[in-house]
């Protein structure tokens, strides 16, 4: 599932970040910011206009990502153990 499709509030884990095109700086930056395999995250807020941008809680940080940016992140929803 893409991060942009993740419902608000449900916990998930990053799978990987895909480049939208060759040498995609936005994807690289997402990886540098910690969107890497196994990192837990959550959508904590959704922008009031057109549901954009999204506010993502990852680790102790909150990042505002536009939907197009969030669509690069593929996540998996892990069943709580």
């Amino acid at each position, binding site marked *: 599932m893409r991060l942009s499709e993740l419902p608000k509030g449900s916990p998930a884990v990053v799978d990987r970040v895909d480049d939208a095109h060759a040498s995609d700086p936005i994807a690289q930056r997402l990886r540098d910011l910690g969107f890497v395999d196994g990192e837990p995250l959550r959508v904590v807020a959704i*922008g009031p206009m057109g549901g954009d941008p999204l*506010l993502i809680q990852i680790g102790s940080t909150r990042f505002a990502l536009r939907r197009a940016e969030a669509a690069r992140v593929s996540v998996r929803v892990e069943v709580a153990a």
Partner: protein
Amino acid sequence: MSASTLKIALVGNPNCGKTALFNQLTGGRQKVANYAGVTVERKEGRFTAPSGRVLQLLDLPGTYSFEANSPDEQITRDVCAGNYPGETPPDLIVCVADATNLRLHLRFVLEVKRLGRPVVLALNMMDTARQRGIVIDVPQLQERLGLPVVETIAVKRGGARALIERVDGEVPAAAPVQADDAASRADLHAQVRELLAATVTMPRATAVIDDALDRWTLHSVFGLMILAVVMFLVFQAVYSIGKPMTDLIGDGFGWMGAQAAALMPAGPLQSLVTDGLFGGIGTVLGFLPEILVLFLFIIVLEESGYLPRAAFLLDRLMLSVGLTGRSFIPLLSSFACAIPGIMGTRSIQDPRDRLATILIAPLMTCSARLPVYALLIGAFIPTRRVFGVFNLQGVVLFALYLAGILGAMAVGWVMKHIRRDKSEHALLMELPSYRLPKVRDVAIGLYERGAIFMKRLTGVILGLTILMWFISTFPSPPEGATGAAIEYSFAGYIGRALHYVFAPIGFNWQISLALIPAFAARETAVAALATVYLVGGEASGLGQALAGQISLASALSLLVWFAYAPQCMSTLAVIRRETDSWRNVAISFGYMFVLAYAASFVVYQVASALA
């Protein structure tokens, strides 16, 4: 002495507290310049360590990664690596990390370490970390990182003592240089996880207060309502606190001018001193209270962490007109004055988004337009009630503010569609924790912005007032002349020449003439009109004179002109400086001239037809 100077570079992720630490160490004394050819700020300060050694401190722009995405980050990387031309490599890098967010910040620490230069890690915000029950095993962290680690509280007096002692001591040995490739970059995250697991215990990933506040401030409905209320209160405060002070200053200087006039014989010199000197200084200083009040609120909101939330709420709207949520803060500043607003666009790292913001910032209704609006609205718009509650004068003023904002949106939208670079530019904005603003940081911020405004404007306005006085006084009218003296002066000739250009939008030659000083500083148009209509500085007298001389259509056209016209040289000068390009100055001047002329033309023609 210079032999024992140690050059220290401060680096870290945005919001780690670098600037607070810099201010703590240097007491806020700093030299701000630009890196050659780019508009990235270079902030340098010095302080003397207990040993007597002078430490030179460089505050580098906040950076997430050396895989640079913006000019700021490139410079930070190059300066740290010691290969930025014209900058001697730092002797020591102090890497600042937010102790409450080590998962993000430690990765950059590891990246800095790989440069193979001496590094000290400052774990900042230790006060907040303790409050939140975060425990960091510093000796263990130091051991595993292979770097000296000190704890700091940048906002507390003496909170940097451990850091000062450490940098005053022996320079630590550098780690070996490591190659930078994709595989080793990915590995950094694994290292961070290991470090965190071994050295940090965190009861909770986020601050309770942040979660609670964000639930409201970012709410789709309440968030926007809170934003609207906050903005309303800010502007209300600007007028209710700033305006009386402004009037007081204006009156004070008027009184001083009158005192000085009493000591001098009547004549041109007397009018230079009273109208030019005291009037001019009074006008400039008069803006200061309103501007400072607005900046006070902006800085407090910024420091508290609220403004990035506003940027989040408005990003979508801004994006639709070719901007970014980040544009919100500089545009808000532009309601005080476009100059600090344009300088504030430095917080937008993306060059394209930054330029777009710079180009539309002058359309925000700055405080310098208000005296002109007040004069014309007072003279031409009746104080009638509309819909039973609103005062028509207030409605017109509001409409002018709205005209500026809608104009800016339209211009942004057009720019978005004609610019060549249509690629996706990221938002990727970190929302910092909420904090109680610290008095000292607010004071420093306020002082910095106030000083920018004063420096830019004082010289220009004074010079122009004197020039204006000169061209409207000389040459003197010939013997037996019947008209006003100004008609025979240089100003009279210039005004009549300009009249050809401005007649289609309803300006007479006197107004055309007043546009010249208005180009230096909008508010001086009022004084210039007073000069040409031969009335004293009293606004009511000038209002009556105007109402008798020009039509309502002309007055409306003039209001619209002031909303859009390319005015104030200082703004153009700052665009030149901030973008390092005359082309952008030309674009900015050109589009605003066309916009203002077209809008005034329509207003004048329609209003004339209806009258």
